[in-house]
C-alpha cells in the first residue's frame, strides 16, 4: 500500500510543485537574461533584484477580468487551455530525476513511473498538446487567432517528425524505450549520447526550439505578427494556462534532452579517479544542473537570433532537418551493423 | 470478473455505432469518422483475444489495421478536399455527379 499508492502520490505532488515553481522562475530568468544581453537590468522593483516578480505576475493574472468573445464556442474555448497544459505536466511522469534513495527504510525511486514504453509515451503526449493550440485559435471565432493557430500547429507537426527521428537514433543506441533504461545504457556504454550522436543532438535542439514555439521559430505568437497568436482572445487565468503550458513544455523538452543525450542524473567523468569528488553531488542536482543548462541555451538563443519567416521555417524543417535526421538514422544503423 | 466476452460485446456495440453513423449522417466527414469507429471496434476485439491467448500476433495485426486506417484517412480526406473545391459541399446527397 505504501509503495504503490503513497510514495508515488508524494512524488507526484513534489514534481508538480517543483515544475510550477520552476516555470514561474524561468519567466523571471528569461526577462533577466534578455535584459543583461541588452545591457540593462530587467525587473528590479519587486523584492531584491526582482526576485518576487513572478508572484506579482501570478497575482495580476488571477485578478484580471475573464473575457469570453461574443460568439466563441464556450465549451471548446474553456477546454483549450486545459488541453494545452495537461500533456505538458503529465509528461513528467516518466522522467527519471535520480537513481533512487532510501528514506526511513522506504525505497523512494527516482521517478514516478518506469513504463517500458516511456519515450513513446512522451512523444504521444506531446502530440495531444497540439489540439489545445488548434482549438484555442478556432474557438476564439476571430481571424488572427485562427490563422496563427493553423500556422503554429503546422509548424509543430512538421518539426515533430525530425525530433522523433533523432529519438529513434537514441533508441537504436540504447536498445530500450524505457527512460530509466536509456540512462542505464549511457552508464554502461561510458559515453553520454550527446557525444556519440552529435548530429542528433543538434537536430533535437533546433527541433525542440520549434516544438515549443520559441524564438527564432516563434512567428505564430510574436507580437509584431499576428497580434498575439492563438491566445489573442484569452485573458486572465486562461492566458496564464497557455503561458504556463509553454514554459512547462520547455522544461519537459529540456528534461528529455538531459535524460536522452546528457546522461540524466549521472555525474560526468565517472572513470577518472581524481575527479571522483563529482560523485558526491547527488543525482538530482546533476539532473537539475543539466536541465537548466539546456534551458539557458533556449533563453540565450531567443536573445540572439532574429525571427524566421514562416516559409523559411517550413523549408528548414522539411527540406533540411528531416532528410538530415533520416540520414543520421541510416548511418547509425550501418555503423552498428558493420562495426 | 471481466472475460473476453465482455470485450466482444463492447466491440460489437461500438461497431454498431459506427454502422449507424455511416448510414444516417449526411456529412461525409462524419461518415469517415464512423468508419474509424468501426476499425477501432475491430482493434479492441483483436487486442482482447491477444490478451486471452497470450499471443502477440493480435497486437501486430492491430498495428497493421492502424496503418491502413491512417492511409485511408489521408486519401479519403484528400478526395473530400478536391471534391469540395469543385462542388462546394460536403453533403453526400449532393455528391451525385454520375447522375447527369
Amino acid at each position: 500500500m505504501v509503495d504503490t499508492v503513497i510514495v508515488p502520490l508524494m512524488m507526484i505532488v513534489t514534481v508538480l510543485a517543483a515544475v510550477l515553481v520552476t516555470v514561474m522562475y524561468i519567466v523571471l530568468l528569461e526577462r533577466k537574461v534578455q535584459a543583461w544581453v541588452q545591457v540593462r537590468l530587467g525587473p528590479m522593483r519587486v523584492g531584491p533584484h526582482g526576485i518576487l516578480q513572478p508572484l506579482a505576475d501570478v497575482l495580476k493574472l488571477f485578478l484580471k477580468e475573464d473575457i469570453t468573445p461574443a460568439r466563441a464556442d464556450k465549451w471548446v474555448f474553456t477546454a483549450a487551455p486545459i488541453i494545452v497544459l495537461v500533456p505538458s505536466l503529465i509528461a513528467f511522469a516518466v522522467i527519471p530525476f535520480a537513481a533512487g534513495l532510501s528514506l526511513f527504510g522506504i525505497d523512494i525511486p527516482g521517478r514516478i513511473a518506469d513504463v517500458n514504453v516511456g519515450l513513446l509515451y512522451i512523444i504521444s503526449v506531446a502530440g495531444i498538446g497540439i489540439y489545445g493550440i488548434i482549438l484555442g485559435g478556432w474557438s476564439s471565432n476571430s481571424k488572427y487567432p485562427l490563422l496563427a493557430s493553423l500556422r503554429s500547429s503546422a509548424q509543430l507537426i512538421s518539426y515533430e517528425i525530425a525530433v522523433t527521428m533523432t529519438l529513434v537514433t537514441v533508441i537504436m543506441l540504447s536498445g530500450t524505450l524505457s527512460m530509466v533504461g536509456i540512462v542505464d545504457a549511457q552508464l554502461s556504454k561510458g559515453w553520454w549520447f550527446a557525444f556519440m550522436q552529435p548530429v542528433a543532438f543538434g537536430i533535437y535542439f533546433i527541433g525542440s526550439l520549434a516544438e515549443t514555439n520559441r524564438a527564432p521559430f516563434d512567428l505564430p505568437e510574436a507580437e509584431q505578427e499576428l497580434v498575439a497568436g492563438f491566445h489573442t482572445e484569452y485573458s486572465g487565468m486562461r492566458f496564464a494556462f497557455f503561458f504556463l503550458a509553454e514554459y512547462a513544455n520547455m522544461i519537459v523538452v529540456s528534461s528529455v534532452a538531459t535524460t536522452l543525450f546528457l546522461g540524466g542524473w549521472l555525474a560526468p567523468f565517472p572513470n577518472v579517479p581524481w575527479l571522483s569528488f563529482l560523485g558526491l553531488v547527488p543525482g538530482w542536482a546533476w539532473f537539475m544542473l543539466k536541465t537548466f543548462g539546456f534551458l539557458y541555451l533556449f533563453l540565450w538563443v531567443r536573445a540572439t537570433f532574429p525571427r524566421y519567416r514562416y516559409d523559411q521555417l517550413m523549408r528548414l524543417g522539411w527540406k533540411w532537418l528531416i532528410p538530415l535526421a533520416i540520414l543520421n538514422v541510416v548511418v547509425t544503423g550501418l555503423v552498428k551493423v558493420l562495426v | 470478473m471481466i472475460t473476453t466476452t465482455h470485450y466482444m460485446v463492447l466491440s460489437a456495440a461500438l461497431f454498431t455505432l459506427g454502422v449507424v453513423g455511416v448510414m444516417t449522417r449526411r456529412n461525409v466527414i462524419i461518415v469517415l469518422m464512423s468508419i474509424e469507429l468501426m476499425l477501432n471496434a475491430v482493434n479492441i476485439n483483436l487486442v482482447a483475444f491477444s490478451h486471452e491467448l497470450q499471443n502477440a500476433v493480435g497486437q501486430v495485426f492491430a498495428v497493421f489495421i492502424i496503418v491502413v486506417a491512417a492511409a485511408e484517412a489521408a486519401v479519403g480526406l484528400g478526395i473530400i478536399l478536391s471534391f469540395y473545391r469543385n462542388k462546394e459541399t460536403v453533403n453526400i446527397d449532393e455528391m451525385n455527379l454520375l447522375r447527369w
Partner: protein
Amino acid sequence: MVEAAAFYILATLILGFGVLVITAKSTVHSVLFLVADFLCVAALYVSLHAPFLAVIQVMVYAGGIVVLYLFVVMLVNLKRPPEAHSDPRRLGRLGVVMAAAVLTEVVAIFAVGWAKPAAAAGTLSAQNVEQIGRALYTDYLIPFELASFLLLVAMIGAIILAKREL
C-alpha cells in the same frame, strides 16, 4: 475488482463518446468526441496489458489521424449551418434495427457459452515491445514491407489529390 471497475467505466465512456460522435450537431464537436473516444480506447489497451499498442493508438490515431480530420473540418467549414439530419425518423428506425441485430449477436455469444476466464498478465506485457518487434520483423516481414509501401502510396496520393495546381 479494480480491473472490473476500470473496464465498466472505460466501456461506458467509449460507448458514450461514440454516441456523441454520431449525434453531435457541430462537426468540430464530433471530432473532439472522437479524440476522447480514442483516448479511452488507449486506456482500455493499457488495462489489457498492451502498452505499446496504447501509445501507438494515442500517437498515430488520436495525435495524427484526428488532427488531419480537424484540419479538413476547419478548411471546409461552411457558412451555412451544419447539416441537419435529412430525415429524423430515419435515425430512429435504423437505430432500432441495428440495436436488434446487436442484441441477437450478444444473446448468441452468451448462449454458446464463451465465458472463459481471462488469462493472467503472463509474459505478454513484460516484453511487449520486443515481442511485437520480433513478430513484425520475422514472421510478418512481408506485410510490414507492404504496409510501408501502402503508406508511401497514400502519402503521394493525398498530396496529389489535395494540391491546388499540379
